[in-house]
């Protein structure tokens, strides 16, 4: 029984995990905006008077927990297909019993 198809079927899970890790392994769902905070001086040129935090939203896609979950689901589906296919192939290669 070849193991190569099983390795290929695990590809969606590996890709999903890599994408998720690249975007910071966030436990929440995907994001289409990223907030960055800027420290803006209350009066320009006078930092001794303190700063205000300004939140700037930038359009950016970040994958979330759905990415490895979807990858796992696809991998299991492909793995099941490979398993069924190989089982059928092995059954047909044995052929019908002589009795």
């Amino acid at each position, binding site marked *: 029984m070849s193991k190569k198809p099983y390795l290929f079927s695990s590809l969606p899970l590996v890709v999903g995990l890599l994408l998720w890790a690249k975007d910071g392994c966030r*436990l*929440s769902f*995907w994001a289409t*905006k990223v*907030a960055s905070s800027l420290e803006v001086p*209350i009066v320009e040129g006078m930092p001794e*008077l303190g700063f*205000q935090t300004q939140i700037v939203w930038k359009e950016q896609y970040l994958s979330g927990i759905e990415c490895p979950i979807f990858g796992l689901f696809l991998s299991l589906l492909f793995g099941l297909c490979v398993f069924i296919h190989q089982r059928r192939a092995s059954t047909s290669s044995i052929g019908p019993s002589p009795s």
Partner: protein
Amino acid sequence: MNPLSISLPTALLLPLFAFAGSKSFDFKDPKGVNTIIFQMDALLESINGSGAGISGSVEFDPEEPSQTSGVILLDASSLRVDNPVLQEHMHGEEWLNVGQFPSIEFSFSQLSDVKRSGRELSAMAEGKMTIRNTTIKMKVPVKISHLQGMLEKRNKTPGDLLVVRSQFSVSREDFGIRSGEHLDKVANQIDISLNLAGAAPY
């Protein structure tokens, strides 16, 4: 009567009035820097966001800071989070219902436990918080800095600045926002941080 005889003394006295008594500070920031930041840490999910639709006014007298009063309003539809579906749900009828309840309001009538440390005052603002038409009494810790004459350097208009900083928490069950529901994903406690600058032109 010569109109100059009235306007000249008035013009001479005007700068004196500008520095006396309480002043009204407008918190609608033309620079768009005024922001509130909120954070909700639930077991499974952490939700962070901000709201920039700040308005309202505060009456402040540097000689009598305990008499400070005012209203800070937040346009509920200006609240943003990183996920578009989550934002839609947050604004929707079952959560904040921004269509029916467009603003979140904190009004306060006085400050207690006022302590001065250099330029900064720390105190407790005693007032009422209204979210989704539910009002509860709250005491919110605030730090206030009165920056006399600094508005000109910020907004190119002569006047004073009032900086209000605060960090406090509210719980959504107090305001009837789906109390007791989805606590694993949407925390009950909402941590709020704000750093606002108000302007009082002369």
